[in-house]
């Protein structure tokens, strides 16, 4: 679970990325994200391509913020039991690692974490699992839609390495919820607008703190 970014040797990674101008051996051997960070840092690509990838990565970062906040809040609520509790802990750690990776990748260009209100779904077993299934299936579809738009190869390699992990999470949460983990032979991509519509419809992202609620405040962030 330890992320390679923590002990990233920036100079070494940069040199390697430069030498290979693509996917280095280190990238294949689990340094996927580190390789992407290096490639991004040297930004050898056209400004337009860089901006394109920044937009895609920031879009992914919002989804990772949402997932990591969701699992972290669920873990802290102490309302989950058994395998769901264990899954929230493990998946939460991975989603937090994804957030950190994208933040490091984007540096100053990383957008800030929005505020969330998960409306009670982190405080009971069944609503938690149902929401987790929805989040993970959505993440799979979103990455699938965005990955082919990435232009820097190491960034693409990182995105696909995360995409399949989200698919594993989706199957895991589906199994715990009691629905078939893999329904179709092909998973469909969701375009950005569709993902944004679905996220917007949840009401989980709140634009300002609610000061008029009669309910006790939820965890945020």
């Amino acid at each position, binding site marked *: 679970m330890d992320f390679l970014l923590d002990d990233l040797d920036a100079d070494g990674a940069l040199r390697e990325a430069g030498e290979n101008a693509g996917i280095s051996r280190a990238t294949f051997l689990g340094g996927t994200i580190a390789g992407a960070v290096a490639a991004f840092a040297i930004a050898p690509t056209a400004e337009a391509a860089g901006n394109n990838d920044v937009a895609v990565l920031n879009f992914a970062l919002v989804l990772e913020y949402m997932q990591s906040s969701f699992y972290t809040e669920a873990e802290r609520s102490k309302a989950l039991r058994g395998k769901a509790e264990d899954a929230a802990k493990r998946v939460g750690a991975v989603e937090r690692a994804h957030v950190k990776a994208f933040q490091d990748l984007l540096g100053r260009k990383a957008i800030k974490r929005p505020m969330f209100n998960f409306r009670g779904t982190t405080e009971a077993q069944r609503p938690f699992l149902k929401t987790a299934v929805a989040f993970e299936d959505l993440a799979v579809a979103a990455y699938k839609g965005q990955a082919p738009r990435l232009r820097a*190869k190491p960034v693409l*390699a990182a995105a696909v390495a995360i995409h399949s*992990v989200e698919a594993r999470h989706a199957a895991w949460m589906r*199994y715990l919820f009691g629905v078939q983990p893999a329904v179709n*032979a092909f998973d469909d991509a969701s375009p950005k607008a569709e993902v944004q519509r679905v996220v917007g419809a949840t009401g989980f992202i709140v634009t300002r703190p609610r000061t008029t609620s009669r309910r006790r405040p939820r965890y945020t962030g």
Partner: protein
Amino acid sequence: MPVQVPPEDATRAEVFRRAIVSGGAIVGGAVAWGLPQLTAAASKEQDARVLNLVLALEYTEEAFYAEALKRGGLRRALRDYAEIVLEHEKAHVAFLKQALGAAAEPAPRFDFGDKTQDGEAFAAAALTLEDLAVATYNGQAVNLTPASLKAAARIVSVEGRHAAWIRSIVGDVPATDATDPAVKEDETRQKLSDFGWKAG
């Protein structure tokens, strides 16, 4: 359970085949997708090579699940899993064969040894094979044209779901790492050979 290739997929496969095999008008659409200089290594010839590699994987999965269902004495959750996943792998084989057209390599023979003899051996082999599928697709992503990448991405996540599903059934942690590994063609070919792939 919608497990056959739906008409929509058949159409996509056909579009895809024309794009990669005969280099038809569809290629224009693929080029419009991304900056050509950054996907310089990708080409329709390379797409065909990569698709034959993943077809080899899908052939192996299809044959493995079919044999396990015949001789493995699988019961309950394992049988349900194998039956559903077999249909997925059949659909993947059909899709890739259609995409490759005449360039598709034929199915080889297999000798899975004792991997299909009982539920325990089957489960251990299945999760190895599904992990290999994910790592292979992930390793090839950067070699594909955008059009082919979009198609491959629709399959790889299903393989990832299978890998997590079989782990759930046997009580393993379904996903431990933040990123999935990627393997290169040589390693995939070697591991398929170790798994039971026999030429011709």
